[in-house]
């Protein structure tokens, strides 16, 4: 799908991050794991986004990777280690 066609908005991702931050005991679950699990719940864990315009990506890229690569842009994503 085109990047703009994804049903997952930044608002939703921001909400997931808030949920993760509110976890009292995340254990070994990282924020990345948390986001992956949310996409799995939505049955979007295998969704691919067209990224032909990106210099460093293939013609398509998993939606989950696109979200994870953008976690640093979320002010509440303090636990992110992905960039």
């Amino acid at each position, binding site marked *: 799908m085109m*990047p703009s*066609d994804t049903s997952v908005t930044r608002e939703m991702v921001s909400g997931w991050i808030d949920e993760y931050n509110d976890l009292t005991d995340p254990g070994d679950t990282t924020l990345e794991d948390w986001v992956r699990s949310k996409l799995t719940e939505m049955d979007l864990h295998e969704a691919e986004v067209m990224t032909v315009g990106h210099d460093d990506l293939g013609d398509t890229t998993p939606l989950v990777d696109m979200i994870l690569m953008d976690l640093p842009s979320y002010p509440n994503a303090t636990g992110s280690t992905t960039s």
Partner: protein
Amino acid sequence: MPQVAQLADVQARTQGFGQGVNIQDAPNELAPTEVRRAENGILDERGGFTKRLGCQSQGTVGASGDRIISTYVFYRGLTAPQFLIHTSAGRVYYTNDPTAGTVTWTEISSGGWSTTQRMSWETFNGKVYFCDGLHALATWDGTTYTTIASAPIGKYLRLWKDTMWVSGIPSLPDRVYSSSAGDAGTWPSANWIDIRKGDGDLVRALATDGTYLLVGKRNTGVLILDGAAFSNRVYDYEKGIESHWSVIQHEANIFYLTRRGIAQWQGDAPASLISYKIDPLFDPRILNFDRLEFSWAYAQGQRVSWTFAEIGSTVPTMQVNYYPRLAELTALGVRGLGPWSFDRMPVGCASIWRWQSSQRMFGGSTIANKFYWMFSDSTGQDDGVSFTAILETGAYDFGQPLLTKYVRRMRVLGRGQFNVQIRKNFASGTCYNKPVDLTASQAHWNTGTWNDGSDWGPDANIKEETINPDVYGRYIAMIFRDTDPDMSSIVLPVGTKDYVIPTGQWSVLGCLLDGFLLGIRET
């Protein structure tokens, strides 16, 4: 060795100042219509130079140390537009009437906005969106302030193809985001692209010509062709855009500041530098390069202008003016390069306001917490302070560079009062100074008889005065200058009706020199 030659009469006249300032070429190589200095005057009347109008204070805003660092006009269809400002106190205000003698400002948000980063603004779906790179994207519909917490927190906004675009995220310097089409409140999570990822540069501007989205880094310009697939390509490998606020559209052209000077967008091709004649200005010993990212552009009438902070200052101290319409037509029917001039106004950002019959340029003061009506019809001073306007011609050699000349007479054509000075042989000082008064006197109307020798009707708007410099030299340059706070006017004939347009104190339209060619002397 001195030689005696036969005296020969010589006359020379200026050919207008229509090509503006040239500080690039050697002083002895200037074209007859170029000038060495032109400051605080406008070239709107082709060939002439007229002192600009002043800045009138429309009152204060915030505390005394606050400065207006960004301005915007929020047009709202049939409802009066609002003038919005962002101050160095991190506050955002609006007024419904910037033309009031003392403007009333109402705070939109005191949400601790940036105190240094200029606000970026766009109007979309009946709201104005604004951001500063530090705080959530905000909207204002004229009465209600809201924030979009999930939107990317960027410095730059641009509306393109019914979509809001954001860039300038400090931690992701290459990234550009797009909202959902038609909805700047919704941001799909994968709707972003890195432009020239990891090239060490950072996005400094978003712009558009309607067809493309221009992403300006400092050293490269990239355009996005397709807002859905983010197809993009580099259009300029050598220079990008220095300042988001330097991008300005004037008629069919887009101009902006690059690291090499002012450029004109060429459409999917490297931008053309148009500032050759003032190239030496773009030097870190002259301009504060650290503040180029905040250069601000505005357009009024025939000219577009950019504000710059000179070295030693963190706020704009000068303006550079370009006159696209005064560019000569080339043999191919396309416009060449237009003339340049400078201003020194205490203004760092400005926007043009138009509502009903009123159109005015308003700007933020750099020296006080004041809001200015720039080029006000009612003042020849900048917030009560007189300023100097100056025009200095190139050095004339009368076609005989070897011979010494004796300048016996000068006939100066213009308006108002100013001083005529002469600089000879490239000296730093002047060797002659003469006040000239070409002021139009009051109209003469009485009950006398026609044709009795009286002067009837209005006095001439343009006058000529003869002065006698009595100067010897090989190269003669003329300087016209003043610091008079008064105003003058141009009478503009529109068919059978004359319109009186306020101007600064004086205009110089031309000058005739009359003298002798002498022999070869040691001068």
